[in-house]
């Protein structure tokens, strides 16, 4: 399971999550982009779903260990990362062939990106909800807190506001993340992928 190339992949995924996620967090953008490395790690191990899940999970938690030094909210969302790794392994990995097809079949590519992104986003929003509401009272340091504030202003209760914010924000964020991961997957050299799967 944990061959040297796969350990490298876990580290690459973690470094990618950390680098992009930290920049987005510090800019207070209303998205996260902190799971691109997790999704990409799983895609690179397709079609082996078990290896994809374990390596994606490990990449996510390794980046959590590092990101916690910059973003004190992030470690509490450890279970969200497990859920993202699981959905990616079960659903997104199935679209790996479409993502890498040459020539690109745009309609099929777009449909798979949206489907996988929305599914990952909905699961992520539901799993994150208890942490956002019960641990932080709906107050997190990311830009998505603007959406919670917006829904509260419109008269929603805290639980509903956090849920609606998650359901608006997470699917959009995850569609973007799946798109970026799929595009990086397309350009990854074949010999690197062969090394990972071998």
């Amino acid at each position, binding site marked *: 399971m*944990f061959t*040297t*190339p796969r*350990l*490298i992949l*876990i*580290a*690459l995924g*973690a*470094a*990618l999550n*950390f*680098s*992009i996620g930290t920049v987005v967090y*510090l800019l*207070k953008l209303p998205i996260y982009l902190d799971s691109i490395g997790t999704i990409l790690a799983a895609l690179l191990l397709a079609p082996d779903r078990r290896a994809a899940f374990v390596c994606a999970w*490990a990449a996510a938690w*390794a*980046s959590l*260990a*590092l990101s*916690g*030094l*910059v973003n*004190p*909210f992030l470690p509490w969302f450890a279970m969200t990362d497990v859920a993202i790794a699981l959905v990616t392994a079960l659903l997104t990995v199935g679209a790996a062939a479409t993502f890498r097809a040459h020539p690109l079949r745009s309609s099929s590519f777009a449909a798979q990106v949206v489907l996988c992104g929305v599914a990952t986003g909905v699961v992520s929003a539901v799993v994150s909800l208890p942490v956002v509401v019960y*641990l*932080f*009272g*709906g*107050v997190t*340091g990311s830009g998505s*807190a*603007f959406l919670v*504030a917006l829904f*509260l*202003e419109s008269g929603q*209760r*805290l639980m509903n*506001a956090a849920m609606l914010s998650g359901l608006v924000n997470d699917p959009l964020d995850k569609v973007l993340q799946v798109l*970026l991961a799929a*595009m*990086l997957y397309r*350009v*990854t*050299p074949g*010999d*690197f992928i062969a*090394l990972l799967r071998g």
Partner: protein
Amino acid sequence: MTPNGAFTVGLVLIAMSLTNPGPRGSAILIALALAFAIIEVRGAALVALRRAALIVLPLALFMGLLWVGIVGKAPAEIAAGAAGTRAAALIYVARLCGRLLFIVAVVQLVIMRFDALTPLQLIRALALPVAAKRVLVITLSLIATLRHAIDRAHIALIAAGTLTRAASLRNAVHSWRLIQAVWLSAVTIMLGRMRDKWPVENTLSLLDRSLETGSARLFAGDDRIWLPITVGAAIMALIADRIGAS
């Protein structure tokens, strides 16, 4: 004190701060953290506290602006359907930021305690499986590799006229090319290391050998003093406010 002992003390302090302790419980946790800072970290504690403040201050400003400025109510008031006041929102944000400051400060104190160690030495001393240590070391090394890859790709794309030095619409349109170039650069570097450099230099087995701690004990030295004190303080923090209430 060993890194395992320091991380355990840190984890207990962080876990206790999440139980939402009252004033007495909080005082016990702060006193323990201060004692750790003064006895174990000494002068470097100021650096750790400054770093923690630098991390939490922008967060506090953002949350203050959002919850005191825009929403103007505390979550509890919103949940109760009450009219709400900005003062209550301010108190809520201050409490939350205080708790985050405590957590970040504890993490920084634990790290500063071993400031003299290199990241490799620190990871080596942790009680983790060798595979996990190897991933952490390679991840840290890769973050540095990614930084170099970003610099190189950025300069190359500016030289090619794809990106500009200053902020521009062109940068927004072509930022994807930068991400792609960085990824390809990182993958190519890692392929080269895995295929040629590491086997020739025998890097991974040397790394594994240097990460193995052999028969080193999990806790040693001052851990035997700090760990019972920390567990005792945690129990005190849990019951202190209940005793006061009854």
